[in-house]
């Protein structure tokens, strides 16, 4: 699937991105690899991933975010128990079924215990793979945390330099930061358009555009995002009688596309969500500085989107959610947590009383990426929507 074949109509862009998202063979990355001998691709597990480090080293960072409902778990469930979330198992399954052999390495992060152990299981089962693990600081109150993260990025980059066999300069890093700043600002724009005119862009459409950005060369994806943004105002879809909601807790394992569509069809405009939060990362651009690693580290501490795996004690846990709901003039908050996702499930226990206190209606739903049928979820949300519309 070459970019040149993509017609710059919105529908063809969405279709193309949808195809990329559902492709568990990672054809887009493989095509990029095949274009020039010696190229390398690096797999990035959620949540936050400093893609610039890999890109600046000349590699393509590829979002390896589980197998969704596109693969069958046949081997990985003998390695990880029934009470472990699906993304951990489906990601291992991708490896055990040799779908990740095109990757030079995989990077995991200190997001939760199963993901952390998964890094070790990858290391043992795929000895030819370069497995990296990044410790994100959880002390963000002290300046020590972000200082430390800059040294952690340095360590990771030193390893990558060894892997690719050439040094990575500050200029290389800043060029990558500029490129990803561009991608992220286009994604922010996409989210802004959706929040302001949700009838012009559905959550599922913005999702495929965003997710495809984790799977394609960023240089090429910029163009697609620009085309989509340019075409959106010309869309003739009309607003529907739906409630306005913001969605939270799906920052790691991703819900099936059909589930996102179901949520909307059941009568919600999802004005904002935390899907793929770690790829959208920052609320503003990462500054271009002499020391790019420090700029990236301070950006994690001070300008990254909240997710349940970033424990920032400078703010009460539910503050961002209440603010976000109010900012979007949302009628309701939907908590969409992956089954067995401890960070999300713990967060809900604090969100619930905070939302009650703020008198914001809310609905808690659990999903698994591997699910195909959403009748129960759909009827729950329909009932919820009706209770708000006809209250």
């Amino acid at each position, binding site marked *: 699937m070459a970019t040149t074949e993509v017609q710059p109509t919105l529908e063809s862009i969405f279709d193309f991105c949808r195809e990329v998202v559902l492709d568990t063979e990672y054809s887009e990355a493989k095509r990029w690899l095949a274009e020039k001998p010696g190229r390398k691709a690096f797999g990035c597990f959620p949540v936050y991933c400093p893609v610039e480090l890999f890109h600046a080293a000349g590699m393509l960072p590829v979002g390896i975010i589980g197998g969704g409902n596109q693969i069958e778990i046949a081997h990985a469930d003998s390695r990880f*128990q029934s009470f472990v979330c699906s993304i951990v198992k489906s990601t291992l399954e991708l490896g055990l079924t040799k779908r990740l052999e095109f990757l030079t390495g995989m990077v995991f992060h200190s997001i939760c215990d199963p993901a952390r*152990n998964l890094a070790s299981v990858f290391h*043992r089962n795929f000895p030819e793979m370069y497995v990296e693990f990044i*410790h994100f600081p*959880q002390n963000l109150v002290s300046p*020590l945390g972000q200082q*430390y993260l800059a040294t*952690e990025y340095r360590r990771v980059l030193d390893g990558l330099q060894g892997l690719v066999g050439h040094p990575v300069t500050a200029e290389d890093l800043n060029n990558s930061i500029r490129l990803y700043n561009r991608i992220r600002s286009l994604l922010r724009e996409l989210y802004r358009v959706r929040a302001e005119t949700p009838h012009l862009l559905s959550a599922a459409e913005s999702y495929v555009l965003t997710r495809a950005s984790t799977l394609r060369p960023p240089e090429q994806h910029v163009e697609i995002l620009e085309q989509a943004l340019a075409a959106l105002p010309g869309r003739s879809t009309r607003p529907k009688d739906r409630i306005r909601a913001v969605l939270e807790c799906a920052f790691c394992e991703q819900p099936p596309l059909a589930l996102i569509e179901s949520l909307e069809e059941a009568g919600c405009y999802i004005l904002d969500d935390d899907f793929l939060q770690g790829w959208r990362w920052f609320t503003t651009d990462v500054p271009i500085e002499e020391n790019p690693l420090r700029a990236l580290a301070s950006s994690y501490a001070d300008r990254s989107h909240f997710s349940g795996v970033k424990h920032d004690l400078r703010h009460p846990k539910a503050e961002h959610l209440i603010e976000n709901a109010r900012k979007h003039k949302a009628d309701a908050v939907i908590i969409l947590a992956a089954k067995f996702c401890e960070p999300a499930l713990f967060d809900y226990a604090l969100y*619930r009383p905070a939302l009650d206190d703020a008198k914001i209606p809310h609905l808690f739903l659990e999903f698994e990426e591997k699910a195909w049928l959403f009748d129960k979820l759909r009827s729950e949300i329909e009932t919820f929507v009706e209770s708000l519309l006809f209250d």
Partner: protein
Amino acid sequence: MANEQLVPLTPSEGSSPKKPPAEAKSEKKSDYQGKMHHMQKEMMGRYFDRLTACAEGKGGKAVYMMISGNPVELIEALDMIPVYPEVNALQLAAKKTSLSHILKAEEMGYSIDNCAYVKADVGMYFAGRKTAFATIPEPDLLLCNYVGCNVYLQWFEHLQEYSKAPIYNLDIPFCRTPDGKPTKEDIHYVVKQLEEVIAKMESISGNKLDFKRLQHILELSSETGRLWSEIKMLTKNRPSPFDAYFDSVTMMAPLYCLRGTEEGLLFFQEAYKEMKGKADRGEGPLPQERFRFVIEGPPPWPFLRQFRDMFSRWGAVAVASTYSTVGGLWEFGFRHDPQRPLESIAEHMLYWNLSNRNFLQRYEQIKNYTEQWGADALVIHSIKSCRLFSAGQGDMREYFSKQLDVPTLLIESDLEDPRYFSEAQLRNRVDAFFESLEHKKMMVKH
């Protein structure tokens, strides 16, 4: 995968539980009550009295901390009181009072799939903070030593929301480099945070840290660690003088709550004396030691006795356990160094405990146990609540049974939630495992 599939029934199972051979059966209790047990009861009783007194406003400042790689020496040096929510939670479970607290937390919005230690603790917090042994004081400081377990971060975040007490996330970078060791930046980062923690504790307690006193406390810890390590080496004897899982539990409470005190040291001197005596006399916890196993994972606190008996009836003794190394890995050489107090505490937190080491380092630790402690088998007790321990233990089983040819049993329950303990199913699995192990032993003999 459904729960049932994790503990598959082999064709030979499924009817009535297998009976172990008659000679292994014993009516005798499979644990040992010596002088150390009385000392433990008295000393821990005094510790719990301190907690209650503090809760009643009779003095003392409570510092909540997690067990993994805990820096109790600093708390002791500032005359504050260490409080471990994990210890409180496990006591609720051991006394069979955890379920009502868990249900209370679930009513509040916690999921059935959240760690039940946290839920029991939260339920208890809102029910007057009482265990069978103490009234737990409100925290004066929540010191979240984030050593490996990501749930710790959330546990303390929640306690902070409820109590509004000051909190400090003491962030400990995970062992993730190719050699598995902390980098010099890791050590620097932790030492600098410890300096901030000290300043915070000084301001809360009103006490100034006396560095000489801290050094003395570290000397006591170092000697305590040496004795604990010697005690653990004794289980290399045949028979093993004590069970390194079920009996270690008695010693773990003083190790965490009283380490760095004269009293704590006294306990370990006595414990070593008693255990050494048993080893010299060739005594073990069971009438006959027929199997030696390594066990991985925390115990099922609500059913500890039933669980222990499943192994005792086969004459099976744990000669090493990973659970007893959550707080520290003294048996592999760690000692606090009074000459480098903060660096030494940092190294303890970063490297010298099980929780902050990666999963493959745990495989190595277990391999080491099976070889050097002369074990016949590995038992993996997979705990739903504790994914730090359990996530991926199927891979561990694969490694030990297929790559190393170590007979391995994987069974599943929980450390706190009694709803996850299926006694008949567990017993079937344990029986089938030891029966097959026995068969293998006989084949080797012939």
